């Protein structure tokens, strides 16, 4: 932080932003408890819409690179989020993709299996709780007697932060564990940063942190979590539950396996792995205990009814496929990026 802008307080400037995400990341920041005071000691928090009032125009007025650190959570689904991403990128020295959504798209990214029309159809018309007798849908422009109202454009495709602007660091997790947030903040405060572009975290996977005993793996049948009460001491995968701990970056302390539930992969892929789902699939495929194509098909079809949701739950938007095939060209602003073969449903 040597070249930190001199501010009246002599502290660095911190911004936090919330784009397409559930809000858990905001709470996770508070999860560092009283250490938040140390953060406040080191930084002036100049922009944090979730917690304090602030205006976009104030950010626009900050000189370029005037923000020392920006923790950006959420993916990019609307034109407003895209604008904020570009703005904060320009204004920040260090931009961190904070949490799974900004990093990999996370659950909002699963909507990349659908088009904007389909999403609107579900959200504004079809769900049982929708009460919309006039069939209103949000429009980018609406004329009212007082003038024209603007709403952000909703894109067909959710993009991750680094598919939108260059990102300096990634903090994985849904949400990131408070200890890891603190580790990252400490590293940033002390200037002990890894090379730009790195994920700040472990370089091995959840199994490393998991206390369960494991053996050579041979799987004859996959089970859903509701079908068995797993033995608490043996590797869950060996018991037929698809545990993503094998492929998921360590950092959480194997929270889910600890409570007898398989890892679902929120910490994303390990260092050097490009496509989390592909990586999971080739690992799982390797340990199916059969040489008979028909039996293999049966094992997979019965045990893994939702392959995209199972293997790409957090990472579809950031995968090599990025999204399901769009019928027609879609009317979102974002062009169809990949001709993905992921079928919907």
């Amino acid at each position, binding site marked *: 932080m040597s070249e930190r802008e001199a501010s009246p307080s002599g502290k660095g400037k911190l911004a936090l932003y919330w784009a397409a995400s559930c809000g858990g990341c905001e709470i996770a920041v508070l999860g560092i408890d009283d250490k938040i005071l140390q953060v406040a000691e080191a930084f002036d928090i100049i922009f944090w819409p979730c917690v304090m009032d602030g205006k*976009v125009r104030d950010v626009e007025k900050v000189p370029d690179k005037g923000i020392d650190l920006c923790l950006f959570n959420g993916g990019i689904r*609307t*034109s*407003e989020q*895209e*604008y904020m991403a*570009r*703005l904060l990128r320009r204004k920040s020295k260090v931009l961190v993709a904070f949490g799974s959504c900004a990093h990999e798209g996370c659950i909002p990214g699963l909507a990349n299996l659908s088009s904007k029309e389909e999403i609107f159809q579900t959200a504004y018309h079809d769900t049982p709780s929708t009460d919309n007798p006039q069939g209103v849908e949000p429009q*980018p422009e609406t004329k009212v007697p007082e003038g024209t109202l*603007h*709403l*952000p*454009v909703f894109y067909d495709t959710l993009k991750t932060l680094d598919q939108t602007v260059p990102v300096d660091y990634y903090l994985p997790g849904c949400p990131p564990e408070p200890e890891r947030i603190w580790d990252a903040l400490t590293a940033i405060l002390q200037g002990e940063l890894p090379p730009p572009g790195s994920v700040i975290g472990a*370089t*091995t*996977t*959840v*199994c*490393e942190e998991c206390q369960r005993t*494991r*053996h*050579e*793996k*041979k799987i004859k049948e996959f089970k859903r979590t509701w079908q068995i009460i797993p033995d608490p001491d043996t*590797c869950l*995968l060996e018991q037929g539950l698809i545990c993503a*701990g*094998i*492929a998921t970056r*360590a950092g959480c302390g194997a929270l889910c396996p600890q409570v007898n539930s398989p890892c679902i992969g929120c910490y994303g*892929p*390990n*260092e*050097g*792995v*490009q496509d989390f789902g592909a*990586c*999971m699939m*080739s*690992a799982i495929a*390797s*340990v199916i205990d059969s040489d008979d194509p028909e039996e293999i098909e049966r094992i997979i079809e019965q045990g893994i009814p939702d392959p995209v949701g199972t293997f790409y739950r957090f990472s579809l938007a950031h995968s090599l496929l990025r999204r399901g095939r769009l019928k027609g060209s879609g009317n979102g*602003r974002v062009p169809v990026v990949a001709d993905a073969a992921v079928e919907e449903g």
Partner: protein
Amino acid sequence: MAERVGVYVCHCGSNIAGVVDVEAVARWAEANLEGVVVARDYKFMCSSLGQELVKEDIEKEGLTRVVVAACSPHLHEKTFRRACAAGGLNPYYFQMASIREQVSWVTEDRAQATQKAKMLIAGAVQRVLHHQALEPSQVPVNEHTMIVGAGIAGIQAALELADAGHPVYLVEREPSIGGHMAQFDKTFPTLDCAACILTPKMSDVDAHDNIKLLSYSEVEEVSGFIGNFHVRLRKKARYVDEDTCTGCGICIEKCPKKVVDEVFEAGLGYRKAIYRPFPQAVPKYPVIDTESCIYFERGTCKACEKFCPTGAIDFEQQDSMMELDVGNIVLATGFRLFDCTRIPQYGYGRLANVFTSLEFERMGNAAGPTGGRIVLRDGVTEPKSVAIVHCVGSRDSRHHPYCSAVCCMAALKFGHLVLERTQAEVYSFYIDIRTPQKGYEEFYDRLQEEGMHFVRGRVAEITDAARSPGEEGKLIVQVEDTLIGRQRRVPVDMVILMGAMEPRLDAKEVAVRFGISCSMDGWFIERHPKLDPVATMTDGVFIAGTCQGPKDIPGSVAQGAAAAARVQGMISRGTVLIEPVVASIDESKCSGCRICNDLCPFNAIDYLEQEGVSRIQTALCKGCGTCVAACPSGAITGAHFNDEQIMAEIEGLLYDVLHTNGAQAPAEEPAPA
């Protein structure tokens, strides 16, 4: 330093140049591909002049990377790696683009072929930029060799090596060595007495200082790698102490229990409960068959023990385990005979006077159950007519598609024996007579002269249901004689079925144990069907004889000797180079999930309990990439096939896509809503 890449486009005579515009491709590569400083086309890159070109350019142009676009890496990757090494470049700074097999041979349109060749070269150039220098590692070769299976092929290999001064362990699962050949009377086409040529070799084995014979033994586990195999084997209990037994055979004489000998006598003769398969058996020590021994069944008898002059009988003996370290392994586990009951319409097992070829071999053998007399199942009646049915289970889509290679000749041999020893008429029912080796066609001519009848056609049925008085009491061979285009019924007294040669029942298990592969039929697969017939894809494991496929004795012997020569080559070199294209595990990334542990086809991966990580034994790894693809931690990297290299190659292959519409203008910052 920016890399300097040389690209060489081979014409392969007109093989490539006939379809691909090689000059244009070379010019294009030089003009467009990043890093390319020289690009040439040349008639035959694999010629010494072509290789010289590469070498010279490395020296004069300071090339740091080389790409040759020619045939396939399978054929000439080694050639060009050598050329690079000759020019002083690490051989792994080389990449080959296959523009013959993958382009000119499979693409008709000249423009398309030329474009495709360009893209493959773009892929190779981008890839080679990411190559790393690799060095092979050296391991010493243990001088001991283990030969598994002591039929004629294994015996030959053992003697060759032992005579050359190298120590050999010869492992045989049966009580005696000799294999199938020990069961025969005569051998085609010379009609040598099988025993006369085999038993001297067997006793040489027994007496040889350099051969340790481990009979009645089986390999249970093999670990390690070329030059350094570790083998665990089980020596089955004979209940006879080999150190005290003199092989006098009194025990056999005194044993009161007689049983049918299903193995050596093919069910045609008897042996005792304590037995030697045949008088000249090597080793000479008998063995007790606990299934038929009265003592093992009822707890009394012990006649053998009572009469043994040296007290060698030991009813308490147990199987014992042995561990051996050897440098090379030769598998010579032979074949088995087709089970003729699988073709019920031929009546074997149901019609008494239908015999298998092995039964007939024993019958024809002067030391066999009938003393060499050719008789019907009753043991006394000489047949007046004999039918020999070829291709039983061979050349038959329901059983084995292949030709068993020796049955025609063995059938002729049988015909000769029948004609020589009886008054019978002999009929051969064949599809095609196959006599391709030295002296074989002449033997066929001889049998035609001797009066053997030949009927061309696959036998439909053998039955004892007579349709005319002439057929009463006979076996009737129903066949379509394809030379005259008519159905025929030939009544005979005796039928011999020439069953197919088959892989051993446990061939697949044995292959897995030794880390080699089997064909769909179950024969062990050689490294190259023409150019490397006794090596396998697993270095240090060789195959010889009929375990590789049907063949005759000369062929088996030649392979035994060839395998021995290959082993000697390894031993005299003293060390072997291990290919550096192997996988390795980054232990800091490995989470110990154990996904990879059971996947390696070469058992190269160990799990280290203490450290909680997996490790690859480099010398065992063949670089197949199975584990690399499976590791969900991305902890395993395949040298020469890492992600970076593969992605670069893919990007290169997509050169035209990325260069025509790839570069999208950066989207401008959208206006705030």
